[in-house]
């Protein structure tokens, strides 16, 4: 083939096209970080950083204490992983090692469907099914951390299940066989061989699930009660970073301290999410060096 022929030109051309696409993806991430940070950090022109991080007094335009939102976000994330994590892990073990083929063929599309249900529909289900139940049992309005946490726990199931299942499945067969050969039961093999060997993958699944929970907006906004106050119990109407942004972003003038403070809250969310990715890198790296 002559250099400079038509096919070689196309070869070059498309290589560069693909490079541009990859660069564009990276550029979008950086643009998101830069734009949200730039807008968010303008808050500190008029708001004391100490107040924003450590006060619970949210009374714009005078006071911008965002602590209760940060606590709210962390609390529902914790609740979601406590409620949904073990259930999802058990589901993953069941799918990977216990369920017969026929059961798996039903359950796998089912977990895919969990992902497909829109988060507003999850919120709607929480409102119409779960809220009346909580009201009846515990009294009060029903809105609060527990209601949002319960629905979030279900929403993170597919993340926990699919990644944990992959991790358990990819444990080398010989480890499992060796365990059985030593006379271990299936439970012993699962608990002492499979889960420990798959632990980095399971931890990754849990971290990704938490990232999903802390960033979830619509379902939580419909269930948390939307009151800018510190949660005193699981049933106090409260707010999270995401719900406060959705609630107030539309009513505040762009560029005002109030609006900027909301952008700073978005920046906190972004920092937590990206921190989780780095955490996963750390977990996976540890496994590689351990081998």
């Amino acid at each position, binding site marked *: 083939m002559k250099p400079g022929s038509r096919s070689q030109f196309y070869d070059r051309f498309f290589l560069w096209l693909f490079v541009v696409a990859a660069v564009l*993806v990276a550029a979008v991430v950086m643009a998101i970080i830069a*734009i949200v940070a730039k807008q968010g950090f303008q808050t500190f022109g008029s708001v004391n950083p100490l107040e924003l991080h450590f006060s619970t007094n949210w009374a714009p335009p005078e006071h911008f204490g965002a602590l209760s939102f940060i606590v709210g976000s962390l609390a529902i994330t914790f609740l979601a992983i406590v409620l949904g994590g073990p259930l999802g892990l*058990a589901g993953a073990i069941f799918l990977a090692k216990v369920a017969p083929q026929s059961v798996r063929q*039903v359950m796998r599309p089912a977990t895919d469907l969990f992902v497909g249900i829109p988060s507003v529909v999850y*919120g709607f289900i929480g409102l119409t099914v779960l809220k009346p139940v909580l009201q009846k049992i515990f009294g009060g309005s029903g809105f609060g951390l527990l209601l949002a946490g319960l629905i979030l726990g279900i929403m993170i199931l597919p993340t926990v299940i699919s990644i944990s299942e992959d991790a358990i499945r990819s444990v080398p067969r010989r480890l499992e066989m060796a365990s059985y050969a030593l006379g271990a039961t299936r439970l012993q093999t699962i608990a002492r061989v499979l889960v420990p060997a798959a632990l980095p993958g399971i931890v990754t699944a849990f971290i990704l699930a938490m990232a999903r929970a802390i960033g979830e*907006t619509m379902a939580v*906004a419909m269930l948390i009660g939307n009151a800018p106050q510190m949660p005193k119990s699981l049933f106090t109407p409260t707010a999270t970073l995401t719900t406060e942004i959705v609630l107030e972003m539309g009513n505040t003038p762009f560029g005002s301290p109030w609006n900027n403070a909301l952008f700073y809250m*978005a920046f906190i*969310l972004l920092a937590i999410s990206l921190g989780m990715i780095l955490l996963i890198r750390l977990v996976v790296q540890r496994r590689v060096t351990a081998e």
Partner: protein
Amino acid sequence: MNKHALDRLATVVLYVTGAVIVGILLFFLLFILGRGLPVLTPDFIFGRPSEVAAGGGVGPQLFNTFYVLGLSLLFSLPVGVGAGIYMAEYARAGRLTYVFRLATECLATVPSIVIGLFGMILFVNAFGLGFSIIGGAAALAVLNLPVLVRVTEEALRAVPRAYREAALALGATRWQTVRKVVLPSALLSLATGVTLVTGRAFGEAAVLIFTAGTSVSRYFPDLNPLAAGETLAVHLWYVNAEALVPDAPRIAAGTAALMIIIVLFFNLFLGSLTRTLQKRLGGKTV
């Protein structure tokens, strides 16, 4: 209790777990459909919404949902698939590849509300698009992008190495190999992946509230991409949170059921379609 009894108990517990997970799903689906199906008359599905009186429909929202979705794929497919091809076919292990992969992972974890705010500043304000169908589509494209990169890369990596070697040995260039050999063999799993991406973007609301807006055009159907672009998902949130109409619960139930039916269609029908095609073409299951 001896270890065998314990083992049997654990098996029972795991079966119950599986049943609980599938049971929750079935209950959710049946509940939503049971409550919403009676609302789904042609008047509701294709009718126009009403601001204050009862009896409004969701026609424009349904139209906008697919319009925004289609436009967003128009933006994100070339870039996402292109970047995925680069990662699977060209990228060598090294620092640059590491950065690209990290960037894709980061983009995939950015909370959707943050993407919504980014879209609001960039597309709605800076580009002057306003709360519009095209503004929403651009923001939604950002959300789709990392998932598209991943499904493309996975689909291409599943193509056996020998195919490429054979093509290259015959004197094909890299691009000819990709276009004539790799992409055709990966097409079905690629299509499945894109369907999944579409299904996920379909129900997204947080990205769209501050980019596509919470209102619809006065005209229906309005093809103008600069028209206000409230979708079904945003509408469901809006009627619950702020609407003035007296029949908000009815509209919410109907909208939720309509969305679930579309999601079921995406998952079941298109899923079985690709499986059948795969069998027809005699391909392996990927």
